[in-house]
């Protein structure tokens, strides 16, 4: 019985340390990708993998930015075209076109982007709120603006981007 009591405090720090470890390695890191000339960022913790463009099966009755579903090693994953989500003109897929698979609300979803750029380290103090006026349509998908030296990365609001 007494062992059981001792058990709890010893187990807890381990679990805690493990948790913080994961957070440590992904904290403040963003995967950035490019659409047209803009660079966008998504928290790295959400990214599952990046794959090159593959065969996409169209699904009827879905919005035009939903390209369809792909077979990701047996998983059926919906993919959306971020360009089209931003109402930008369609662009042919090329060698750089990628599908960024993210995990969102327990399911996976793929984002088709022009190309993947880098993993950027943006500290909290360099993350700014977006301009309050929402002039552009795709502005609504931007949650924050991240500053890395002279560059600006638009940090995406996944909730809005993936709202169906």
């Amino acid at each position, binding site marked *: 019985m007494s062992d059981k009591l001792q058990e709890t405090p010893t187990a807890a720090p381990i679990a805690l340390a493990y948790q913080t470890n994961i957070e440590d390695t992904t904290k403040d890191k963003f995967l950035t990708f490019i659409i047209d000339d803009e660079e966008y960022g998504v928290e790295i913790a959400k990214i599952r993998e990046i794959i090159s463009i593959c065969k996409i*099966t169209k*699904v009827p009755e879905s919005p035009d930015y939903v390209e369809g579903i792909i077979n990701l090693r047996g998983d059926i994953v919906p993919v959306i075209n971020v360009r089209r989500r931003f109402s930008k003109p369609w662009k042919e897929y090329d060698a750089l076109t990628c599908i960024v698979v993210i995990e969102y609300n327990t399911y996976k979803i793929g984002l088709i982007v022009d190309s993947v750029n880098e993993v950027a380290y943006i500290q909290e103090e360099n993350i700014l709120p977006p301009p309050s006026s929402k002039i552009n349509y795709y502005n609504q998908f931007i949650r924050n603006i991240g500053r890395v030296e002279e560059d600006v990365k638009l940090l995406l609001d996944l909730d809005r981007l*993936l709202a169906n």
Partner: protein
Amino acid sequence: MQKSLEKVMTLADFDRESMLEMFSYEMAQLVEQLEQTIIQAEAGYAIEQINEIFRIMHTIKGAAAMMLFENIATSAHAIEDLFYFLREENPTDVDYSTLTDFVLEGMDFIKGELDKIEQGLPNNGDGTETNLKINAYLKQLKGIGSEPADSGGGSSSTPGFGESGDVSAGNYARYKAVVFFDIGCEMENIRAYTMLHNLGSQITRIIHTPENIIDESSIELIRANGFNFECDSKLSYDELHAQLMETIFLRELSLEVVRPAQPAAAQPTPAASPAPAPVESGVARYEAFIRFEENAEMENVRAYAFIHNLEDYSFDIVHIPTDIVSETSIEDIRSHGFRVEFSSDKSYDQIYSILKNTIYLRELSLSVVDTGVSAEPSGRIATAAYDDSVVVKATDVAAVSEPEPEPIPVSKPEPAQAPEPATTTYDQPAAAKNPADMEAKMDTALMSVGAVDQPAKKAATQSVISVSVSKLDQLLNLMGELVIAESMVTQNKDLENLELESFYKEALQLRKIISDVQDNVMSMRMIQLSATFFKMHRIVRDMCKQLNKDVELKIIGEETEVDKNIIEHIADPLMHIIRNSIDHGIELPENRAGKGKPRKGTVTLEAKNSGGDVLIIVSDDGAGLNREKIIAKARQNGLLRKHDSEYTDKEAYQFIFLPGFSTNENVTSYSGRGVGMDVVSTNLEIVGGSVIVDSIPGEGSKFTLKIPLTLAIIDGMIVKLGDAKYTIPIISIQQSFKAKQENIFTDPSGNEMIMIRGEVYNLIRLYEFFNVESATTNIEDGIIIMIENGEQTICILVDELIGQQPIVVKTLPKYFKKIRGISTCTLLGNGDISLIIDPVGFFDK
């Protein structure tokens, strides 16, 4: 130390899980069986049924006590008592309906608690009220039955306590006790009740203040003045004191003797055993021989528990078989019984009555070997659990997680080894000292039982094993992968245009084996509908009672098998349909008589196979659905899309499945909220089934549920449509053919129709329906597939047929909302995704 500790803990957790799983599985089965028996028995309890109920309650009690679910055990005990009385006394004028009510109430409580346990919630329900009711009823029965009333003290003896009728004063002492519970322990009245209950038949003629401990107002009184009671008992002062000290949350106990026991005049002795001269004082050597009930299982653990209990008041214990740790002893105990020799300072009667309480005991014989032995415990036995029972119970538990050598209470050859979990066990739940202790004991208990349980099962010859559903699901998933992998190999692109005669021959053999394995895997998941069907008896019974209706439930074809996943989804729909039938359909007996129908209504529940589907038909001989009322209500809710008269009866009846749709003006406890039938359609949709309603006004209604046999792997026809490949379930395809332009008609609104052999069907061009580009638009180039859903038929145009193959159904990602005509998808041999066409989508425009 740390590492090993962790290991032990996880082991304990694991075993607790599996043990709990086993427990809830067995309980669920017992409860189900019990419910059926009770419902069947309501008309009049036959002796077999009473025996059966008694046996089930006994098993539930034993198992629950073993798992330390005390409230369940207590409830089961109350019902068991009741049926014990019925069995033994066989009273005549029992109101079976009331009896059934009580038993069902008690059982509902147990069921509720089991649900909680299954969901991982604390089983903290309080069945005291129900138990008291049952006990009171038992008392009442005894009053009207042949048994003489047991209470002599009169005024406020609590019903159900000390119900043994043998109050012949004599060797009974009268005690007076005041008990205070820990401050903040809450529910003092129930604790007081439980305390008395635990003492059971050991005390009689109880008078307690506050008198009414059922009422919550007594809580304050007990808190302020303590719980005072007087009782008669055969137990000595020390014994009673010790027993009372076991009470959970006990803070203070004062016990005094009001009147000491008088020398026995005529001592009631246990019937079957040879009664040697009782040993009044000093230490005697006893020999006990016990057998457990045949289906008790885990005899060695039970034997161990028996020894463990014995250790509290005896020493120098020797038993045969000596090794009850290994499971090999199970068979031994089963065939030869379990023999124990021990010394104790207790009297024969005392020991006999204590031993008699062993769970699952079938046979007990106790004899005195020697009336005067040394009171010194010999060194041969482990005394750890003997000297101070309270402390040791805690260390017993520690023994599992502490890898120090612990004296093992049985004469195990190698005590230096880390004690095997199986050696530690626990005694009756009432003995738990406090919640922490209890919890710790729980772990141990579960562990020990879990560890021994499996070998025990192995030892028994069993032709049925229970497998966890998750394992079956996993197997099914792997099966799906295998099916796909097989077609990926045999239809590999690299093999195209090659002459591979022997390869294809072998491949064919492979496919055959795989499909056999697949059939087997699927058949493992098939479960008879009977359990689901029989559950409905209860609903019918309860509703009849409440609504004053007289309805008989007929069950046909309950042996029909359906996939486990599907069964889970049809119990609720069935319940709602039956409720609907009884509430809305079946008329009151007097109205029925007026209409020339038999007073007793009938609801028929029928299942049968039909192709790849199972049909479940619920029909009643009630009033039928009221089309006018439904249409009126639909109009009121703004649901009508065309003129009233254009709705066929079937279409009109479909309205009742819409959420929030009820024609009942008054909300009753059964219907009127418009929730029930909505569940029917949603649940059926999940499993890909459908429901059709037929009704003849005044004669009754009929609900036909069509559900697929199985979900996961179906035969599909792959069709080409532009670049895409779609899959149509083979079971919904009636035929396919090339169409001729002259058979196509177009109505003014542009709907196309096709005439086949004198019949006209709607035609859907699938590329239009799904908005697919680059598909064949010329009707003569494509191919027409005739699809049926229920009683409707439609023709669709596709580019070409590719081929038939088994497909593994995968759900579409949650990201997609409901898509008309598409429900699921599958992976083809080459890894492409093919959407599976759901014919239902073509019909509900």
